């Protein structure tokens, strides 16, 4: 099938930039050393030994000594809330938020109001993104009409209108038979099928992970089983149909096990883990801070460890934020009443770097790779640092300390589970598809 370019955005002036003596870490390219990097006309023009390149006319020069340059991050799972919930986020604020976090591309979920389940709506969204999106955005469409789980969307029509893939995210595809049909149909339509795994007969009424903390708090719990049984089921369906399935926001030991087992059989599966599931456990729910309420809920320490191991060994190919903005007054309610979701784009790298890389739990290279690998899983070009490639870069000061949320958020919402945390690692500059998408105040002043 032919599809239009799945990524859309405003575009911008191609940048001419020289970053000198910066530590380039591009794991897929095998680069991990200081270099001078020149971007000309929005593309990487030269990668040279440190101190070897002289500034050219009209070129911005950034002294990168002590800083790191990574391939820009790519998030295959964000909620931009357009259309219908612009009080939570819009394309402009959401992509500004992404750029501030070092992201050079994001994929938006279709559980909007109305749901993105028709080509006409998808086209109008893409038109809007051309006017408002600060970084390239891909849009997914629903697997089933109105996320109701009963009728397939016109997947072929949606693909031809530019759908990156399909997901009923926010809800599971409850019926195995319905999911099987979608995966069969994918052979013709193409497009990855991304699954939010949850068995509603196990999760109904729950507001946090079922366990000691939920017992203590008297809050109805969601057992890990709710996710893991569905991952196992749907991995088997995907394997049987030879379909391409991506598991979203994994949160449980048994889910990682099921994914690993399915991949070992050669099934075309992939998975993602969120910064919050990698950094936090249900212990964080103790004070009933509604920013700690998300779906799937925060799990146990053993789940967190299994996710970390999955990220380390590549069972989980990417880190995705599931950036889920909600307006302050929607979250300023009792825990059980609050909507599920945390924002994450602006804090993702710093949170994971601070909690997992600095203490030596995960190598920096692995984290940097996983933060951009989502593009490949969505069949989109991977951000890369290579001569001739479009400049998709982020410049990071690993030693810079800051407090999440202290200076507000680019996102329209502030329901961030890392709010108030002291973190290391600040994104100073984001170059997305060859243009400057974000520039930290510190860099502007320099």
């Amino acid at each position: 099938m032919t599809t239009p370019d799945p990524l859309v955005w405003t575009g911008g002036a191609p940048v001419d930039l020289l970053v000198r003596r910066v530590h380039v870490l591009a794991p897929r390219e095998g680069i991990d050393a200081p270099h001078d990097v020149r971007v000309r006309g929005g593309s990487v023009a030269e990668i040279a030994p440190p101190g070897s390149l002289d500034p050219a006319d009209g070129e911005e020069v950034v002294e990168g000594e002590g800083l790191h340059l990574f391939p820009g991050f790519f998030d295959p799972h964000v909620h931009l809330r357009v259309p219908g919930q612009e009080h939570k986020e819009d394309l402009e604020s959401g992509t500004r938020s992404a750029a501030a976090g070092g992201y050079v591309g994001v994929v938006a979920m279709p559980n909007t109001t109305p749901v993105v389940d028709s080509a006409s709506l998808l086209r109008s969204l893409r038109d809007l993104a051309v006017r408002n999106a600060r970084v390239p955005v891909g849009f997914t469409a629903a697997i089933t009409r109105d996320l109701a789980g009963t009728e397939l969307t016109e997947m072929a029509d949606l693909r031809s209108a530019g759908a990156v893939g399909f997901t009923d995210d926010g809800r599971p595809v409850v019926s195995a038979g319905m999911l099987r049909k979608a995966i069969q149909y994918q052979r013709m339509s193409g497009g990855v099928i991304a699954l939010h795994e949850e068995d509603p007969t196990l999760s109904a009424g729950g507001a946090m992970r079922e366990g000691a903390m939920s017992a203590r708090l008297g809050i109805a719990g969601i057992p890990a089983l709710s996710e893991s049984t569905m991952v196992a089921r749907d991995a088997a369906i995907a394997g049987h149909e030879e379909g391409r399935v991506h598991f979203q926001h994994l949160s449980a030991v048994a889910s990682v096990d099921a994914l690993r087992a399915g991949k070992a059989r050669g099934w075309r599966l992939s998975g993602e883990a969120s910064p919050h599931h990698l950094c936090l456990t249900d212990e964080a729910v103790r004070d009933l801070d509604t920013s700690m309420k998300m779906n799937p809920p925060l799990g146990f320490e053993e789940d967190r460890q299994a996710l970390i191991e999955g990220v380390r060994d590549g069972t989980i190919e990417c880190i995705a934020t599931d950036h889920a903005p909600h307006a302050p007054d929607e979250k300023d309610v009792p825990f059980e009443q609050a909507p599920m979701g945390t924002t994450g784009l602006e804090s993702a790298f710093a949170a994971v770097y601070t909690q997992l890389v600095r203490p030596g739990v995960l190598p920096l290279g692995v984290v940097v790779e996983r933060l951009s690998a989502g593009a490949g899983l969505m069949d989109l070009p991977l951000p890369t640092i290579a001569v001739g490639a479009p400049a998709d870069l982020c410049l990071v000061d690993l030693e810079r300390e800051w407090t999440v949320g202290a200076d507000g958020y680019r996102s329209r919402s502030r329901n961030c589970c890392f709010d108030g945390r002291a973190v290391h690692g600040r994104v100073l500059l984001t170059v997305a598809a060859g243009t400057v998408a974000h520039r930290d105040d510190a860099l502007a002043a320099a």
Partner: protein
Amino acid sequence: MRHLLSIEDLDRAGIERICDRAASFAEVADRSIKKVPALRGRTVLNLFYESSTRTRSSFELAAKRLSADVVNFAASGSSVEKGESLRDTVQTLAAHRPHAIVVRTPWAGASQLITNWTDAAIVNAGDGQHEHPTQALLDVYTLRSRLGSLDGLDVWIVGDVRHSRVARSLVLALQTMGATVTVCGPPTLVPRDIAVLGCDVRYTLDELPRADVVYALRMQNERMEQAYVPTLREYAAVYQIDARRLGPDQLLMHPGPVNRGVELAGDVVDGPRSLILDQVRAGVLVRMAVLFEVLAGREDGPRPTAPPTQETPA
């Protein structure tokens, strides 16, 4: 004590202090004019998001016996559905500057949350399935009045532990007072990790004879609809406390209202081992003590309530 939000706010000395004060108020209940001026000029607001006759009227009586003014605000289901948030409701009511707000909601942690929105003293009268601290206090008071001390006492809490805020507060309070607690009920109605509270867990009444006190919980009909137990008949067959199961030296308690013939057989409800009416009487006394604790030590009026913060998107 600024608020009473959780039984965990109280150590053993705190529970004893409240029980002692409640005992000192017992004499008031026996007067022909059942009123003391301890809280004259104070306003107590009852904010109830769930229907409650006993707890609300018990708090109302308690406040009135202390000469406080009482306002009852029942947030019906429909008014909540009309969209006013808990915060807006609380701030609207707080504008009347009550000295204390007694709050019951179906949401865990709501009373804690409310302390952010008003300077009034907050008393948790039940927050979802989390806690019901005044119930636990009145239960401790009842046992203390009867037995003198709870040290070494073996208490069994029987029934729907999963949905019971009473159970959660009571387990904590009884243990603080030196008792040993066992919770018992159908496995579907006992959270599997409830032992983190420090209690033992049993799924049958086989060892019930070792209990000094049997505390039955209310079994709600809706649990049948949700298939937690197959039938009330089967529930009663396995878990009902009746004259056959309740030993002659065992005391019986229940937070009310009782489903006769379900969790309790009628004969034990009215029997000599039953403390159920003592619990009801203790309710007013303990709530007097709690209101006195949170109000009498405070300066004359609450500080002005802070205006709602303006939410401006970044």
